[in-house]
């Protein structure tokens, strides 16, 4: 009897572990960093700094996550962001009013994603890898063509607000340096919206169903191609938001923007527990994945560890995280 209870407790815990295990790793990392750098790491300045650094990556990671849930991949998010950023810069330099300037990267990103989605479905590419590998080059090339391959700097404060804005907290009795970055609020809002979308809407459920078994989805009358086009378009749209944030942070459009960031985005998803086979992973997990990468980079910078070691460590964490996932799955599924 007691044994049975024990087993059921163990079985009850597994889903929670599967859902929240990655948060444990995140908390553990925060603790370790805090112990190593007690004065700096958890200071207001440094914490907001981490969030500012992950702000645009978190948008790319969320987009790539949705694509990975459908068992696809999007290698072009970094290039979509760069192209959107360049279009923003050119439009801003042409003197367009700010409310048009801030719309351009969102529309451009969406259209790039739509292009990916239509290419994958209409051209019946054997795998999204191929389509988005192609557009990785196409979009970055296009970005350089419209800007002449040179940086374009200087945006108005309205355009920079999402990436650079501050929410003053002095009315709470805090000091002037203890402000809230607007990008942090933006991350929270976007992640909550997409959490609701993926978990509480029909389309969101169908995205998971397609990743679980595309044939089942088709047999259920779901228009799989339409859902895929929506997913890639949203991924592009999120990359466009990333471009807008980056424009604010750096105050310039530059040719190397987002170079290799698609790999960071994929890494964050994998660390966060998304499965390459599709159908698995949570928005919370992606957020944890992005945070883990951000904190790792930040912490290692604080400790003056060379960026070469950072690469080695991030790579190791990817392998370790997936191995933990493999063990976790062994526990959870029947044999």
């Amino acid at each position, binding site marked *: 009897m007691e044994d049975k209870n024990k087993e059921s407790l163990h079985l009850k815990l597994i889903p929670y572990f599967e859902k929240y295990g990655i948060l444990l790793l995140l908390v553990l990392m925060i603790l370790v960093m805090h112990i190593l750098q007690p004065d700096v790491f958890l200071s207001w300045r440094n914490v907001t700094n981490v969030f500012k650094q992950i702000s645009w990556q978190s948008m790319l990671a969320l987009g790539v996550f949705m694509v990975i849930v459908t068992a696809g991949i999007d290698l072009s998010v970094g290039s979509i962001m760069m192209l959107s950023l360049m279009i923003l810069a050119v439009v801003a330099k042409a003197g367009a009013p700010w409310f048009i300037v801030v719309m351009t990267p969102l529309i451009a990103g969406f259209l790039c994603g739509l292009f990916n989605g239509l290419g994958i479905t209409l051209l019946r590419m054997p795998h999204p890898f191929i389509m988005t590998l192609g557009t990785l080059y196409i979009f970055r090339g296009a970005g350089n063509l419209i800007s002449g391959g040179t940086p374009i700097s200087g945006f108005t404060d309205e355009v920079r607000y999402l990436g650079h804005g501050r929410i003053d907290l002095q009315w709470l009795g805090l000091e002037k340096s203890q402000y809230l970055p607007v990008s942090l609020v933006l991350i929270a809002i976007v992640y909550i919206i997409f959490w609701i979308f993926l978990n509480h*809407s029909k389309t969101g459920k169908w995205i998971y169903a397609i990743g679980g078994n595309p044939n089942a989805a088709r047999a259920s009358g779901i228009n799989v191609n339409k859902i895929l086009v929506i997913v890639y378009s949203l991924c592009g749209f999120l990359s466009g938001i990333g471009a807008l944030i980056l424009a604010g942070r750096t105050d310039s459009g530059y040719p190397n923007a987002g170079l290799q960031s698609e790999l960071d985005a994929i890494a964050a998803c994998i660390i966060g527990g998304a499965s390459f086979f599709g159908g698995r992973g949570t928005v919370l997990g992606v957020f944890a994945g992005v945070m883990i990468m951000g904190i790792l980079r930040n912490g290692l910078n604080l400790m003056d560890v060379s960026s070469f070691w950072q690469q080695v460590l991030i790579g190791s964490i990817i392998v370790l995280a997936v191995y933990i996932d493999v063990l976790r799955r062994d526990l959870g599924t029947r044999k």
Partner: protein
Amino acid sequence: MSTSNELLLEAKGITKYFGTITALENVNLKVHAGECLGVVGDNGAGKSTLMKVLSGLYKPSSGSLHFQGKEQVLNSPRDSQILGLEMVYQDLALAGNLPIGENIFLGREPTKNLGFLKFLDFKKIKELTNAHLDKLKINVKSADQKVEELSGGQRQAVAIARSTAFNAKVVIMDEPTAALAIKEVGKVLDLINGLKKTGVGVIVISHRMDDIFTVCDRVMALFQGTNFAEAELNNTSRDEVIGWIMGKK
């Protein structure tokens, strides 16, 4: 409510070409309410093609489908679902990463509206799932259990539950016991017998004579894309049916 032997589905003179290949030629088929029709035939006899025509996945090259006496043109599986014609696929067509309830309602989820936004109604999904599983006497731990955690027989039960969750009148099953352990076969066959009692017309495609002779009332054999033989189950024998499959009368 339909009378017990109302003619539900009739296919008349179905012919299907794929390029120059003739997959079906002038095939006729009838299913009545509360009746189980067994369809047998060797590989390539045209069983799967016929079922795909019935479910709206393929359009017949000629011939017509009549549902409850009315001729119907099916353009997609959605059309046949709306008429109350459901298909249980051999590969089960379930998403393993989703819970039982969400699989049963996949593509037809109940929602509740909040302004212009529609949210999934998980409570309703669970209630409807439990009620439906109870009705079919299917035992699972919980409607929230993921399908990948189920045994083959339980999965087949969920697939059948899925096909009957929306007042299906005709259920077509493609090899319902092929992937199952022997002890699970009986449960699935019981389930089919239960369905018949509720007035559903069932078509079972199977290679297994045991299945045919346990649940079917009538059996028809396809041979090289044509109607080869048909008989009430009482008027035939296993050996005779096996002979039909091989093209011997």
